[in-house]
């Protein structure tokens, strides 16, 4: 242990900026990657139980090592390039999907102002990073030189751009009530004497639902997984991918799902604040465990949706996004403005 600390201090004294950069990159990455591995195991277990079967149970205790076995299998497999594929872009696409998905974690706080970057424009940064992820999918579809992949990429691009509008508007109403783009300030604005009923889910109930549903649509998960659509276009944008690049797409999708599961509690459910009154002792104290418990609920809700609903038809997805969500969010931005103007909801009271 001492050697590691000595080595770190040596690096920090001679190359301070570089060491900071590497440390800032590595520390969020490892927990995210391990969380993704656990989440994949949990998904298979939960869906197994919902189907009345066991799920992974052979490798490691409770099948816990199954994901790691799968990862090593994928990493050791051959990468197959389709004929006449654009090789450079074919390999760039998974990275272009992964890097923004990991970069977005820089501004996610787990306590009041406890984040890798406590940026003032944190929420905007997050939105910018998640909107960049779609490039990975589009480029993958185009560079594969395959009809199915192209169709998947087109579907995904249209879907992500459509649902981003509804998502953006639901964030606008949160910003109006919180009066800040900083994620820690947004959570602190939800604190209050009424506990649970001071959080933004109550004044912004339609936005809360729309945000989560749009989040599911943005991450291309069931029932919105038109980009993959196994029964229609084989596997969509990643139909030609095998081995390590496929594993990277997989990692990106699950990292984005966990990110959305973090964002919903942070924006609407008081983040690390406790649902109970402060007078209840340790139950009423705020802490990271509340945030993780809420995150775990939404992460499991993703799997619940997957096991419950059939896939949407494409025109239904577009109709829901443009004709239902966007009008509701537009109206509710106005309602949120009234709430703020007339003082019906006071931030941090």
């Amino acid at each position, binding site marked *: 242990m001492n050697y590691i600390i000595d080595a770190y201090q040596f690096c920090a004294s001679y190359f301070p*900026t570089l060491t900071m950069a590497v440390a800032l990159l590595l520390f969020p990455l490892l927990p995210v990657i391990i969380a993704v591995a656990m989440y994949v195991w949990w998904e298979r277990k939960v869906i197994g139980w919902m189907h009345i079967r066991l799920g992974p149970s052979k490798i490691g205790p409770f099948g816990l090592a199954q994901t790691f076995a799968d990862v090593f299998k994928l990493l050791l497999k051959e990468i197959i390039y389709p004929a006449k594929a654009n090789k450079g*872009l074919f390999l760039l696409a998974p990275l272009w999907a992964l890097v923004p998905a990991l970069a977005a974690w820089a501004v996610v706080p787990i306590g009041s102002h406890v984040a890798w970057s406590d*940026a*003032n*424009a944190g929420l*905007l*940064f997050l*939105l*910018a990073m998640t*909107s*960049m992820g*779609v*490039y990975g999918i*589009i*480029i993958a*579809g*185009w560079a594969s030189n395959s009809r199915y992949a*192209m169709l998947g*990429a*087109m579907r995904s*691009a*249209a879907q*992500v*751009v459509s649902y*981003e509008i509804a998502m953006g508007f639901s964030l606008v109403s949160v910003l109006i009530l919180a009066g*800040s*783009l*900083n994620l820690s300030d947004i959570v602190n604005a939800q604190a209050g004497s009424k506990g649970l009923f001071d959080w933004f889910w109550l004044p912004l109930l339609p936005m809360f639902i729309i945000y989560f549903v749009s989040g599911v649509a943005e991450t291309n998960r069931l029932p919105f997984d038109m980009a993959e659509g196994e029964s229609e276009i084989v596997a969509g944008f990643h139909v030609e991918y095998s081995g390590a690049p496929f594993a990277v797409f997989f990692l990106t999708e699950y990292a984005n799902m966990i990110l959305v599961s973090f964002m919903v509690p942070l924006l609407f459910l008081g983040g690390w604040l406790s649902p109970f009154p402060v007078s209840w002792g340790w139950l009423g104290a705020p802490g990271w465990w509340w945030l993780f418990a809420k995150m775990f609920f939404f992460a499991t809700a993703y799997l619940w949706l997957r096991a419950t609903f059939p896939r949407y038809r494409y*025109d*239904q997805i577009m*109709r829901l996004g443009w004709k239902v969500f966007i009008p509701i969010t537009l109206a509710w931005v106005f309602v949120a403005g009234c709430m703020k103007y007339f003082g019906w909801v006071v931030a941090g009271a």
Partner: protein
Amino acid sequence: MTFPLISFYLFAAITTFAALAVVSVRSPVHAALCLVLTFFSAACTWLLADAEFLAIALVLVYVGAVMVLFLFVVMMLDVDIDPLREGFIKALPVGLAVAIVMLVEMLALIGVRSLQVPQIADPALAAGMSNTQWLALALFNQFLLPFEVAALILTVAIVAAIPLTLRRRSGVRMQNPAQQVRVQARERIRVVKMAAERPAPQPETTTP
């Protein structure tokens, strides 16, 4: 040379090379991707100048939305690029002339400004608030009318774009979602009560 200065030169160099690549690469898809890189590195230089709201808004709007649609169109169209490139040399003098005039104008502007105005302190820093907050206050108090006019113009542009591309086709069968939702299960399926097995075949009676 400080670290921010080195980063600035790096980002500026990437911006310039990416912008050059936009007009010089062969494939339209590569050109669009180079344009994405140009926007992104320009946003990075803005971040170095502490304009975090503008930088992230540039990434969000241009990289996250506009260029996605652009790429979408470029991928869908199977553009035959060779005839398009024939005019490249012919248009080069005009392009160079425009570029040089723009460069001179920009340099003149920077020169005049630096002579004219004493160095202004960062107004957001002076007011003791974040860049985003200061920008929002300025935009919605001082410049509300221009802001609203710009929004109106954009809305008119969107509305105008729709009739231009709207074509009414006859014989298109549309879904009526309200009707679909109103459908009851008993209108579509009929549950038939019947025995689960066929009656066992009667043993053949032999005629005596």
